[in-house]
């Protein structure tokens, strides 16, 4: 079966004043159709770079991206992207933000409105359509972003630490909601996070990256926990703890390396 997303020997080198910097080197990553893959790694290791390459926002220095078997050119039209930072247009109401993608595609206004309201209801924001982003809490804004992405029904979801700015309770709620939406209509997901627990509880597979520079995958772990899952409860199961332990051991060295580097850079 052709993978939904295939990163083939991706290398990204950035030219800078202090010489060039290779963020990621020779990364090989394939995400199957309907598979939920999390990518974990120490902070600043180039996780977002990989996601931007898959989205077509960033052209790799070397290597190729194939989306459902076809080489990617320009922006990846089959992917929805959820950013770590706020991506909503502050001058548009929640509803107008959700329907923006439909508007760009020339969908009839009344139809877009109907579907927008439907999606707002699905993410638990029925009746909040006329609020502007600044009138919503952080968690609500993330829900709007989620609806904004899912309304276009992209077969591929790229998510860059989407819930990292939320408090732990809101975060687990959002993770459960994401799993529910995902299981209803299985999409291929690349989920970037630095939180190993989040990665294990959500995914089918966890890919561990090395510390930067020249980040590359150093391990892959299949997560054979049963679905449907509750992210808060599954953390207590013995199998989860076992997996966590195994993955953490492989990551530990890299995390310490990444930490030492950051420390040296600051010092």
């Amino acid at each position, binding site marked *: 079966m052709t993978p939904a997303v295939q990163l083939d020997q991706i290398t990204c080198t950035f030219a800078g004043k202090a010489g060039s910097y290779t963020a990621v080197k020779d990364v090989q990553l394939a995400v199957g159709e309907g598979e939920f893959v999390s990518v974990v790694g120490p902070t600043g290791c180039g996780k977002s770079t990989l996601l931007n390459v898959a*989205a077509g*926002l960033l052209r790799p220095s070397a290597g190729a991206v194939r989306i459902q078997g076809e080489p990617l050119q320009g*922006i*990846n*039209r089959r*992917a*929805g*992207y959820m*950013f770590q*930072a*706020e*991506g*909503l*247009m*502050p*001058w*548009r*109401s929640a509803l107008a933000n959700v329907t*923006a*993608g439909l*508007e*760009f*595609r020339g969908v009839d206004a009344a139809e877009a409105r109907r579907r927008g309201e439907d999606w707002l209801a699905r993410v638990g924001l029925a009746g*909040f359509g006329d*609020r*502007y*982003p*600044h*009138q*919503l*809490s952080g968690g*609500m804004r993330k829900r709007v*972003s989620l609806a*904004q*992405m899912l309304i*276009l029904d992209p077969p591929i979801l790229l998510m860059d630490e989407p819930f990292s700015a939320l408090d732990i309770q809101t975060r687990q709620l959002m993770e459960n909601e994401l799993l529910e939406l995902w299981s209803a209509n299985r999409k291929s997901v690349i989920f970037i996070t630095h939180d190993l627990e989040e990665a294990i509880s959500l995914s089918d597979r966890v890919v561990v990256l090395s510390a930067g520079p020249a980040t590359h995958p150093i391990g892959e772990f299949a997560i054979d926990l049963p679905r449907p899952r509750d992210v808060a409860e599954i953390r207590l199961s013995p199998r989860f703890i076992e997996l966590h332990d195994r993955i953490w051991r492989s990551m530990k060295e890299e995390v310490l390396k990444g930490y030492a580097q950051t420390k040296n850079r600051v010092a």
Partner: protein
Amino acid sequence: MRRYLRLWQALLLVLIFVVWQVLTQPGLIPPVMWDNPDRAAFFFGEPLRIFGAIADWFGDGSIYRHLWVTLEETVLAFLIGSALGLAIGLWLGLSPLASAILDPYITAANAMPRVVLAPIFMVWFGLGIWSKVALGVTLVFFIVFFNVYQGVKEVSPVVLSNTVMLGANRRQLLRFVYLPSATSWVFSSLHTSVGMAFVGAVVGEYLGSASGVGYLIHQAEGAFDINTVFAGILVLTAFALVLDFAVTRVERRLLVWRPTQGETEQL
């Protein structure tokens, strides 16, 4: 205390006029500065006579024509200056090459005291309203231009990327992201630019015209009629306050999406 703020403010105003009247009315108190008791009134006018002049203007309705001309010039200067500033600000903001080439010219044109252009505009556009409008436009243009230019540069890259991922093409990006972002900056400079349009109109009238409040002041000054000069100044001030009030109302309507400090509504 705060409940009576308006009252205190009004009392202060009355006090100022009373002191002014007492110090200037011939023969009321022994002369302080000059030997001649009429001298103070000659230089500073007398509030009672000033109000008399204002009452005459509004009584016979002769002022309305002049106010209307000044308003017309202000509004035209504001609209034309804002439109030009918006268009050119967007263009230069989005085209690094053009802005690099034009940068020194923009700086020079902004540094130049533009009031000196008034005589040239007089020659080009005659003594009617258009020479005043032109002067106002040169003042308004730069305020709006710099704000829009800044606005375009400071559009959040995440909002941009997000909008691109939602499928916006270049034209849609301009319409749905750059333009709203830039107009919000135009509105944030609304008070200053309306004020500048007003300054342009009045200065233009003062330098040569056949109508407008600036013209009335100029006329009275030629006849050493200091009371009428002050009457004109007071009318202009009141007019500017009304204009500012109108701008505040418009602003509140158009910038509902903008968070204001302390007003943010968390749900």
